[in-house]
């Protein structure tokens, strides 16, 4: 029974199945360079209508918006915004924002946002991190002991609402940064008072010499908010503060941009500050678009949907070579990844013997790790002070010596050591931690040290490292500002630093003294002291820097001023257009 006898209407439906399969096959065989004429919606021109007054700014931005057929091929053809005009700038980035409150923020993307919206008193020349440039402050000076710092503000500086930037605003902002006790509050440690004797003068007093403070002032986290505006919306310098939510949709800074809107997980939109007291940006707005995946960032740059892709993989650089209308640069960064040994952690007791830690250091194949993680697109790093920072020069780079490592382990009487190695399972600065730790595990197994790899989310890693500790781990570090003191304050064997506690060792009196001296010194003497501190941190055998990865800058060729800055990541105010 039930023989299917009818075929009459089958033909009508047949197309559905066939068409679906055919579409897939066509897609799979589709030719590569027939890219942009498939998008026939170029007539819509719904493009840059976000700022109706975009044409009212400077010189060359007002002209022809007609058919600019000479635009580079990657220019977004369906937006109606021809290349060469001051279009809205679109940046693809995997953003790590958790707040937009300038005194609570602490993340890589925060540095970009804060620099664009909240100015600091002092800036850093993006081409030379040793050169400070005036921002809100016209001038600054320190007393001979480096315990008192006086800043003179530029009287022309105004906030985006037109009100002047005064010393009271600086006092309020810095006291709030310290008082809210967020992650960046450590920048204010040692400050005993902030005085504003007049509208243009700020005097900061420290409890001990701190020559780093001038450099610290250039950190984006030291940006200035309008006290009046912030206070009117609940900002205070203690736990009664209730302004965090307000800062998610408003800004109160003096930078070249103001916050337009923020949709968590989607985009951060900045609009040009039309009341900016400095040189205005040619861009009517900048959108930082959440694009998680490096490949997706690359694709969107190739298609002209974004102007700058911030986290392109090293593997993709080759793919972009020769791409018309796209510039790719590989530059040095100040970021680094490292492994660390914590004798103070539960299960890390054997690491208390420095010979065991040195064996670990000698067993690692540094060149191999550099190749495995970033394809050689980076550098080795001697100490926790990254290449390019004061005190990093001339220190010996780590080298592998398996025989010496085995001899040290034998001398220490260690045979068959097993260490728990929890680490954040992330991909940062182009380094995949899973790959890196597999290589480290392989290197250490050669000398009989067995790593039990335990990839975890970053939040869990924080909990573990600050709880019972992790005997062997891997992490990363990016600078908060341009002073080398931050590395000693975090990695040094000095009372109260994070890694001194984890190392299980007592504070190192010599290192502590060197640091105190460095904070009181200046010029060459200071550099020399940080150099000694770098060597001391190498000798501590707690932190083993593995890779100082390079950084890929990939952007539309008509964008100018794309630079990686040690303090601020990418300075949006410095970007221009050809």
């Amino acid at each position, binding site marked *: 029974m039930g023989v299917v006898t009818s075929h009459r209407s089958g033909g009508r439906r047949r197309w559905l*199945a066939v068409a*679906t399969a055919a579409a897939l096959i066509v897609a799979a065989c589709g030719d590569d360079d027939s*890219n942009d004429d498939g998008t026939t*919606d170029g007539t819509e021109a719904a493009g840059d209508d976000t700022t109706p007054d975009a044409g009212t700014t400077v010189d060359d931005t007002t002209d022809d918006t007609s058919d600019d057929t000479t635009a580079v091929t990657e220019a977004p053809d369906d937006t109606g915004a021809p290349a060469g005009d001051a279009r809205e700038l679109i940046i693809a980035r995997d953003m790590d924002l958790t707040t937009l409150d300038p005194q609570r923020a602490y993340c890589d993307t925060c540095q970009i946002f804060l620099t664009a919206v909240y100015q600091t008193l002092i800036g850093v020349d993006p081409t030379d991190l040793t050169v400070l440039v005036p921002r809100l402050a016209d001038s600054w000076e320190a007393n001979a002991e480096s315990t008192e710092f006086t800043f003179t503000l530029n009287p022309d500086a105004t906030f985006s609402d037109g009100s002047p930037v005064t010393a009271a605003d600086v006092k309020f902002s810095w006291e709030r940064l310290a008082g809210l006790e967020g992650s960046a509050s450590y920048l204010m440690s040692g400050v005993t008072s902030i005085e504003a004797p007049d509208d243009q003068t700020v005097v900061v007093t420290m409890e001990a010499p701190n020559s780093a403070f001038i450099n610290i002032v250039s950190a984006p986290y030291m940006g200035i908010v309008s006290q009046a505006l912030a206070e009117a919306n609940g900002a205070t310098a203690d736990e009664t503060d209730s302004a965090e939510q307000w800062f998610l949709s408003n800004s109160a800074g003096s930078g070249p941009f103001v916050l337009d809107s923020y949709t968590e997980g989607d985009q951060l939109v900045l609009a040009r500050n039309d009341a900016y007291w400095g040189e205005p940006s040619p861009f009517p707005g900048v959108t930082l678009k959440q694009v998680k995946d490096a490949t997706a960032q690359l694709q969107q740059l190739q298609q002209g949907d974004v102007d700058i892709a911030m986290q392109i993989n090293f593997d993709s650089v080759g793919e972009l070579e020769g791409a018309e209308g796209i510039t790719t640069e590989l530059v040095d960064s100040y970021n680094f990844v490292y492994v660390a040994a914590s004798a103070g952690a539960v299960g890390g007791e054997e690491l208390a013997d420095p010979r065991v830690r040195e064996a670990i250091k000698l067993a690692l194949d540094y060149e191999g790790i550099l190749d495995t993680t970033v394809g050689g697109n980076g550098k080795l790093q001697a100490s926790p002070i990254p290449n390019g920072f004061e005190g990093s020069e001339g220190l010996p780079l780590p080298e592998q010596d398996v025989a010496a490592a085995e001899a040290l382990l034998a001398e220490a009487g260690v045979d068959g050591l097993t260490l728990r190695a929890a680490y954040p399972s992330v991909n940062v600065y182009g380094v995949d931690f899973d790959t890196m730790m597999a290589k480290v595990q392989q290197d250490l197994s050669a000398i009989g040290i067995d790593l039990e790899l335990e990839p975890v989310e970053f939040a869990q890693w924080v909990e573990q490292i600050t709880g019972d500790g992790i005997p062997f781990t891997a992490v990363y570090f990016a600078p908060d500002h341009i002073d080398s003191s931050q590395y000693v304050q975090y990695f040094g064997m000095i009372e109260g630093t994070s890694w001194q506690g984890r190392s299980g060792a007592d504070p190192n009196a010599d290192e502590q003294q060197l640091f105190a001296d460095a904070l009181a010194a200046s010029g060459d003497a200071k550099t020399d002291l940080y150099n000694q501190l770098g060597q001391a941190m190498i000798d501590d055998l707690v932190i083993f820097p593995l890779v100082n990865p390079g950084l890929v800058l990939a952007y539309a060729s008509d964008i100018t001023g794309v630079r990686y800055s040690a303090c601020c990541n990418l300075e949006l105010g410095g970007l221009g257009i050809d």
Partner: protein
Amino acid sequence: MTNYVLRRLAITPLLLLGIVTIAFIVSRIIPADPVASIVGERNMNNEAVVNAAKKRWGLEGGVIEQYFTYVRNLVTGDMGTSFRTKQSVTSDLWERLPATAELAFGALIVGGIGGIALGITSARHQNKVVDHLARLVGLVGSSLPVFWLGLIALYLLYVRVGWFPGPGRLPSRVDPPPHTTGLYTIDSLIDGDFGLAWRCLRQLMLPAFVLGWSLMGIVSRLVRAAMLDELHADYVRTARAKGLREGDVMRHHVLRNALTPVITIMGLTLGVLLTQAVLTETVFSWNGIGTYAVEATKRLDYPAINGVCITGGVIFLLSSLVADVLYAAVDPKIRYA
């Protein structure tokens, strides 16, 4: 019928309480402390900061106490404040739900209509080339991981041939339509901006297709099996013997009976759809509940995790309720069971 619906409605609050309780317990038995992610690594050694954070984020007191506070707040629609976004979870979810709904609705259309069409085609041409081809299409859709399919689809159709726009709900440099429903395609139509509606629809096509294809496989297999059962039934032979046209036999007899179980499966697949949406949203930078859930989990954002669980649970409950009611409306046997 009314009694049946009322009975089903009456047990819904109990089921909801069950979902809330399980979501709460599961989030609290994870061996991880969200305070670390709130205050950051540098401040974990600062007891004053840690205590202040616990107080601010309601992590003081025992789990039982926290549970009752949570349920009490929930009754007033307050799901707490996200540790991560610093916004109310209710408003976070409200903001993202339309994105997921738009995607899920698109996928349901692709999966439902496509699946039914494929199933019918297969059944009508059982064991012929068309049947094999249609089953292959369905099988591929339900077997391929959506994130892989999404990446491949983007690579081929966006990067290589440029037929579809890239990831995201809107093209670059385009503002969203004025907010009415939060569904961009609908909102642009309401606003009378047909150009924008078309652009939004184009953005939706690829993710909806990718997500819908996985559903298509399930639906088509079910429709095919049900159709084959019915096609072989005596009443169909009788209908044909009476001289009815094949089209009428199909529409009025076979399809009507074959589609009954499809209603149920469509209701239940909504759960599958939500799970798959997590991956689809990530690949297509679609800022919906799925990506929110992923980020919340990574940061141990309890209020957000619970909020997503409860929202998912409510959607699942409502959809199965609707499916049950529809099923009961179609099949009298259910009503009296």
